[in-house]
């Protein structure tokens, strides 16, 4: 009745990969690295899933968009 709310699950807090490791640079020239932040279809994965912080997600999305411009990454992948 009143208890139809789903129980809230708290997992381990995700931490931004780029904050954790300063050696990993966000670079549009490196599609291998960017690939882990898009789905198999080529869509960007939201930071809410990957745990990337807002600042890095911004530069990440810029890098992905640039990478797409020069055909290093796909806009869309059709199976």
């Amino acid at each position, binding site marked *: 009745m009143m208890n139809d709310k789903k129980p809230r699950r708290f997992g381990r807090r995700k931490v931004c990969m780029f904050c954790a490791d300063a050696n990993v640079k966000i670079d*549009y*020239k*490196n599609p291998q690295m960017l690939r882990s932040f898009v789905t198999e279809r080529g869509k960007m994965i939201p930071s809410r899933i990957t745990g990337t912080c807002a600042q890095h997600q911004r530069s990440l999305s810029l890098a992905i968009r640039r990478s797409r411009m*020069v*055909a290093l990454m796909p806009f869309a992948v059709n199976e």
Partner: protein
Amino acid sequence: MITILAPETTSEDIKVIQRRVLELMERKEGRLLALENWGRRRLAYTVRKHRKGIYLYWRFLGHFELVAEIERLMRMIEKVIRYMSILVDANVDPNARPETVTDEQLNQAATIPTFDAPEHEEREARPAETDEESGEEAEAAGDESDDEDKE
């Protein structure tokens, strides 16, 4: 700046393009900092009906007029199927970037690596790119006295 050339482009063609760009740079007081050939790579999608393309990566210093001129040149050369210039740093002191490109490096960039789809090589750490999205038209704001570093 990245340019993608049609896959059938020859070394001679690349040399011609190099020469024309260098001429422009000389006239507009720019300087080429680096030129790399990433070889013939598979494109993530077809560009002007090509599935593969030869990637050339240029790093140069120059005013926005130079950038506009180079982009104009790129549109005129038929072998260039895609180009993108990106502002790396605004207001760069030209003396702070002493690197130049030797003839040997130019020749090297003109020869197309034979292996297909080379792994991306790590470039030296660079100051972060600080600009907004610049698709085909890179925006180069800055007044006369500024130097921008473009790649």
